[in-house]
């Protein structure tokens, strides 16, 4: 049984088709990266899974049940448009939302204290939300999404506003949750995070699904056609007909090769021009490159 099943789902607002005929299967105990440019239809898709919006056509199942008001409590949701009552106390607001998801208030209180401890917020628990920094508010938001131990968690940009230390903590918690059998849908623009954490991805643009499947398989299907070169000296050697496209990174370049091109020719050219090569590696394309490639092609 899949965690989420979408069958030919379509949703329009007046003249605009936000989601067009999308089918998707998300397996359990996995992390899915839901990717796409701004306005691709990600939020609409998520809202339909949450039963906040109803699809015009197609069907959606969550953990084997058709979506309904009852499936809401099976899902933990961190929406992109998020905020909490600014004048409520941190612990009270966590208890309120946990109770809305079906926990008794005593149990909600116990877990709230546990989570506040875990995320370093214990001393803020009696403060009003408005007195917290943006990053701390973000952590409170995260707690409210996962406190009822939902088997499915949907997180829309969970890392925005978090410093690297807190981002690592949240990442760790997500990996733990997957290990405990939860399924996570992660919608984000941070490709390096997707590459590090996700088992599979689904890429949508302008309401259409462009790509989905296991991340490893997708990358393999592109083959090792990308050169990562770090060097010091002139970059004249990169003007080579074998290189189709070039992405400049902070410490070097990512060069996409023509099919059948020999990377050794490029290395030779670099050596001939007295460039000092620090790193020269033939790799699968980065997810970032796949993203740009697929969305610009569509």
């Amino acid at each position, binding site marked *: 049984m899949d965690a989420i099943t979408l069958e030919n789902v379509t949703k329009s607002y*007046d003249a605009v088709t936000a989601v067009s005929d999308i089918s998707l299967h998300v397996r359990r105990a996995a992390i899915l990266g839901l990717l796409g440019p701004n306005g691709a239809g990600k939020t609409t898709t998520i*809202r339909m899974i*949450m039963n*906040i*919006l*109803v699809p*015009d056509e197609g069907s959606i199942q969550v953990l084997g049940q058709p979506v309904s*008001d009852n499936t*809401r*409590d099976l*899902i933990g*949701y961190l*929406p992109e*448009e*998020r*905020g*909490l*009552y*600014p*004048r*409520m106390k941190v612990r009270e607001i966590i208890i*309120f*939302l946990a*109770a*809305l*998801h079906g926990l008794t208030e005593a149990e909600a209180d116990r877990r709230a204290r546990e989570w506040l401890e875990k995320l370093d917020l214990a001393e803020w628990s009696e403060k009003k939300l408005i007195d917290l920094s943006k990053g701390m508010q973000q952590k409170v*938001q995260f707690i*409210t999404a996962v406190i009822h131990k939902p088997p499915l968690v949907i997180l829309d940009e969970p890392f925005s506003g978090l410093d690297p230390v807190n981002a690592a903590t949240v990442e760790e918690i997500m990996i733990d949750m997957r290990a405990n059998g939860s399924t996570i849908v992660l919608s984000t623009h941070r490709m390096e995070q997707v590459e590090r954490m996700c088992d599979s991805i689904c890429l949508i643009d302008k309401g259409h699904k462009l790509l989905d499947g296991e991340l490893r398989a997708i990358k393999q299907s592109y083959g090792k056609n990308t050169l990562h070169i770090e060097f010091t000296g002139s970059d004249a050697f990169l003007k080579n007909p074998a290189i189709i496209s070039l992405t400049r990174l902070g410490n070097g370049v990512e060069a996409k090769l023509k099919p059948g091109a020999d990377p050794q020719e490029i290395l030779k050219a670099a050596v001939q021009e007295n460039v000092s090569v620090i790193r020269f590696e033939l790799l699968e394309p980065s997810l970032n490159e796949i993203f740009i490639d697929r969305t610009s092609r569509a």
Partner: protein
Amino acid sequence: MRKLGLIIKREYLTRIKTKGFIIGTILVPLIGLAFCLLIIFLVNHKPTHSMRLVIVDNSGQLAQPITQGLDAKLENGQPEFNIVETNVRPASPDVVQQDLRARINAEKIDAYLWIPRDPKDSFELHMRNPDNFSLIGPLSGAVDQAVISARLSERGVHLDDIKSILRGTDLKLMKISETGEAEEKGQSIGIAVALVVLLYTALLMYGIITMRSVLEEKTTRTMEVLISAVRPFELLCGKILGVAAAAFTQFAVWMISTALLFTYGALAAMGMGGTAMSGVHVPISLVLYATIFFIGGYFLYSSMFAAIGAACSNEQDAQQLQWIAMAPLVFCMVIYSMVLNDPTSTASVVLSEIPFFAPVLMALRISLQTPPAWQIVLSLFLLLVTTVVTIWASAKIYRVGILMYGKRPSLVEMFRWLRYS
């Protein structure tokens, strides 16, 4: 149902814990009490010292009758006025005036009364603090009586004869109802107007509170987090009921304190020697009807205000749209005096049957004169149907609106939202 309870509880508790609510709930009756006490103080505040008065009589005739008229006593048995001296037709008035002024400034006397040569000219009372109203009244009365009596005497008429001729009759108004007759002292009108103002204020005030509360969840972006846990309809109902619970708490506090105030008010009235406050009693049936119509009207207007809050993204937009819900209420305030004047006219009957006006106007009619049962039942039925339809439509607009940010929707767009699934 459990979720609805949680939402009502949160809404109620956060609302009654706000400073504004606590201040409003306690301060309003306190201000009322303060006013009452002030009135009681002013009414009961009687001077304890006689006024030391000098009479300067330039006419030579009026000093004596005026002195006779100033024979009242203070509560402690002393005379109100202590006529220190009477100066009839002084030879040099200016010197006398100067001397009297000096004596007043030296606080030897409190005032002097200047009687003109010709009683048609003004009388003058000179004093340091011309604000001792409790003594100016009797003094002015004594002067009037003396002058009028003198004029009547010239025509050979005695003052007491005129008094007995001019004594007014007593027209009692009797209000007939099913339970018998009761003396009408204008309290029906008083109750009716108070009822209209109360219903109008409460419907408007708590409607706007509901609207603000919905808007707050949008502007703070709490909305989507909430509807990931509850149905929008539950959220809407919880919000309206939570605000209602807070409203009824506030009203209960006000009502109880008003009842207490009335007791004080009655005391004040007795202090004045009048019976202005006695005889005001609000019939239980009216309280019951007014409550029913208020509850109906509350849900009708709150759901409209909630939908407006949901459709807007900021306070300014909401202020522009809120007239839709306010207009019928304001219309009630404009038109109610017409119903008050003639509660049984066709216009009054028709207006009070229209659901948006019924909560105020039907309650008003019931307070004046119980309308035929069918009119009350029909108006309640129409109100109920309209309320249900309005809540349904508001829930639709609410459901779409809570996720919409940006430009304020037009009315046409809001109507289109009704068709969304």
